[in-house]
């Protein structure tokens, strides 16, 4: 119930293509769904986030699509660039009790954009 399942584990996309990373969850109490981006040798940093009352959020080339009924959300990177090569983590937050202090993390996707 507290898990977030992320796929694929790794992804190779040609420059200019669309990168898509998917996450699924079970707990309908989750109220916040961020994506973090991590470059090698660095800590993760917030990329974009969404709340379940909207179905899509776009920031530049990055879009989160959210399907509440299917309990799935995905990250789309349009016109993917070599500089987007990084590990991407989805996460979710449960607002109830002690879980409110924590994020539940997906396992991560290593994205490589080929020039």
């Amino acid at each position, binding site marked *: 119930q507290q898990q977030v399942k992320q796929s694929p584990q790794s992804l190779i996309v040609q420059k200019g293509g669309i990168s898509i990373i998917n996450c699924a969850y079970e707990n309908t109490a989750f109220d916040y769904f961020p994506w973090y981006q991590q470059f090698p040798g660095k*800590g993760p940093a917030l990329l974009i986030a969404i709340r379940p009352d909207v179905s899509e959020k776009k920031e530049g080339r990055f879009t989160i699509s959210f399907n509440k009924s299917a309990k799935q959300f995905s990250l789309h990177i349009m016109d993917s660039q070599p500089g987007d090569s990084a590990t991407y983590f989805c996460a979710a937050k449960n607002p109830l009790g002690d879980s409110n202090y924590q994020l539940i993390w997906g396992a991560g996707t290593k994205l490589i954009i080929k020039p």
Partner: protein
Amino acid sequence: NAGVTQTPKFRVLKTGQSMTLLCAQDMNHEYMYWYRQDPGMGLRLIHYSVGEGTTAKGEVPDGYNVSRLKKQNFLLGLESAAPSQTSVYFCASRLLSGANVLTFGAGSRLTVL
């Protein structure tokens, strides 16, 4: 404004040795967290703190202890290191209210031989 600073960045230990990782933040954040990152396993929460003088266990607390004597510092201790504790450790912090954004440090790579 340095954000979240972790020291040391690298450390090699022998099995059974002890050490402390230091996390310092200058953003006046209330919440602080210690995670470990292992290949294919994402970020796993070790311990966290919701304020000065308070700590709580996360998902994988065994073999670790923490202390938060000052609001800006969160220490992670290994009393008797084991090879299974070889990992990259990340500290993170966030505000009590407002945007739910974690700020991470650059990581501390620990190898236990």
